[in-house]
């Protein structure tokens, strides 16, 4: 099963509902292109909803890091929403849990962008 993504705009934030596998190959490539495309459209705030991600490997984790730094370098923000236990554990093991801004409530995640933008 490959990765699927659905985009929603909530206020100034693009919420990306991801499902399936973020692994070396198709999944990672799709995520990279999606982020690049959004930045090209002037999107600054990206919230990746990982609730339905069934599998992520070391390359997928690397792709999340890449998305995070790419968006940050463009003056934007990328945050994570609804980590599964497996993804949560992987981010803990790799010490990336504190690098990402991780949320489990979409409304609060959205407002955190607005607060940051207004600050």
């Amino acid at each position, binding site marked *: 099963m490959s990765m699927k993504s659905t985009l929603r705009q909530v206020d100034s934030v693009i919420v990306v509902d991801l499902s399936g596998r973020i692994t070396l190959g198709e999944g990672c490539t799709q995520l990279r292109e999606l982020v690049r495309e959004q930045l090209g459209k002037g999107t600054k705030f990206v919230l990746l909803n990982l609730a339905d991600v069934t599998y992520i490997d070391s390359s997928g984790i690397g*792709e999340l890091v890449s998305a995070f730094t790419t968006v940050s370098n463009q003056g934007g923000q990328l945050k994570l929403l609804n980590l599964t236990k497996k993804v949560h554990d992987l981010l803990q093991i790799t010490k990336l849990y504190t690098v990402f801004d991780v949320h489990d409530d979409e409304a609060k995640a959205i407002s955190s962008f607005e607060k940051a933008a207004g600050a």
Partner: protein
Amino acid sequence: MTTESNIVEMTLESDLNRVEMVEEIARRVSATAGFDEDDQHKIEMAVHESVINAIWHGNKNDPSKQVWLRFQIFDDRLEIRVRDQGIGFDPSSVANPLKEENLLNVSGRGIFLIRTFMDEYRVKKLEGQGTEVTLVKRLNSNNSGQ
């Protein structure tokens, strides 16, 4: 694919689309060996990362090169060997992904995850034939790996 009561052996072409099937086999063999669901997932991930390394880094995604895998169940452990036809690598040359300066690196976490999830990880260069890695997971091991 060859199966004996305690051995599963297979040869794959270098195709990333094969990896999902290998994960499924790793999960089933781990369950048969007596590992709980948590450990089955760790073994599955370690096998995934090893096979990806073999296809991508070892065989350079060359479809004419193959990856050989062998799962062997012992009374006290599961041993997995993954062999590619590449030129080999030195695992000690991989930077520690947990170091502050490496945290935001895009790559370099695969071997770290294998080492975290398994009890042993060995790399052997097979002169003129490729590289073989051996993964060992002991039953009732203390390696929590989260």
